């Protein structure tokens, strides 16, 4: 008798909880911001492809599907840490096979050498190069992400990647970096 009672009681309890869970599963489903968008928002959007994917969004999709989070040199450790936070995994050092973290750079075209081939214009992922066939090209510096994808296609090697200049308004208070003048003591 106790056997049957136990079976009935637990069976009914389980049925009831199952019903509740089934109801809750449908009723309270939360539509969250898709994880890919959240990852994409953390990536630096340089669209440089150093991660092995054509652009930041494809890499975001790859991370959502379980790829490593340490393949983005432009984002550097800060991005890796933010991704680790988001994905609930441990932060790793940047995978050096994809490149090293570097200072921010922009592309500059040595305009007198440019032959106007438009190859760099096609290579630029963010349309930051202006110019037309047979005309001199130029980089819109504040739109350039520093991806350096335009450097290789240039047939005359007239594109340089130069570090973003430090100005008083974006200076990071590195007191050690200030060159100090030496004065010969008059005494």
């Amino acid at each position, binding site marked *: 008798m106790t056997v049957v009672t136990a079976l009935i009681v637990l069976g009914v309890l*389980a049925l009831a909880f199952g019903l509740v869970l089934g109801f809750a599963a449908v009723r309270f489903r939360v539509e969250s911001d898709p994880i890919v968008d959240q990852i994409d928002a953390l990536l630096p959007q340089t669209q440089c492809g150093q991660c092995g994917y054509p652009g930041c969004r*494809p890499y975001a999709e790859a991370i959502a599907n379980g790829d490593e989070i340490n393949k983005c040199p432009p984002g550097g450790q800060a991005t890796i840490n933010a991704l680790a936070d988001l994905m609930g995994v441990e932060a790793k050092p940047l995978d050096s096979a994809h490149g090293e973290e570097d200072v921010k750079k922009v592309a500059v075209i040595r305009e007198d050498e440019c032959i106007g081939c438009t190859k760099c214009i096609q290579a630029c992922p963010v349309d930051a190069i202006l110019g037309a066939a047979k005309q001199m090209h130029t980089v819109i510096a504040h739109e350039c992400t520093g991806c350096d994808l335009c450097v290789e296609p240039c047939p005359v090697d007239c594109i340089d990647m130069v570090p973003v200049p430090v100005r008083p308004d974006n200076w990071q208070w590195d007191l050690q970096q200030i060159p100090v003048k030496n004065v010969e003591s008059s005494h």
Partner: protein
Amino acid sequence: MSTYKELTWQGLWNNNPALVQLLGLCPLLAVTATVTNALGLGLATLLVLVGSNITVSLVREFVPKEIRIPVFVMVIATFVTVIQLLMNAYVYGLYQALGIFIPLIVTNCAIIGRAEAYASKSPWHHAAFDGLMMGLGFTLVLVLLGGIREIIGNGTLFDGANLLLGEWAAGLRIELFTVDYPLLLAILPPGAFIVMGFIIAGKNWIDQYRAARAEKPEKVVTRARVTSQ
């Protein structure tokens, strides 16, 4: 074959439930005052882990996502209760030694953790092996912790092993030293936390040391051309 190697490595070291996942710490810290107790709990956990992993893996096809947790808990609780009853009936001496720990296993998150993280996604033989290795990893840490605490706090090793392993094991007891005033802290709960902290630190230190020594694999990554479709 490499799956098994990977599972072994994961269970014993890389993803050790006690050292890395930090799961099941509550029974772990509570019962590791001696090696014997540690070994007992470890073996019981191992047994339940293998059983529950196999069962969860076998039923995974029929369990919808929404109710998987209650089902897993039920599977584990059934396993624990059945094992407890069987031990009580047929190996009474062992049951007496382990009695209070066995119900604790139900609440051991290492087990439900494996059910959720691995067994519910893998074929039964892999799940079984995973359970075995995770259980073994857990047991090893338990025994290590129990050993350290017993040595420091009691000056002995394998004290009371005969209760767990039978009369022959009475000879295993090693009296390392006797002091008038043992360092009680080691066998009190705070001692468990402190020793556990040092074991985890030691594991991390070994990992870092190995990582520093390991040669970086030469890997060539082809950079994607974002714009050359």
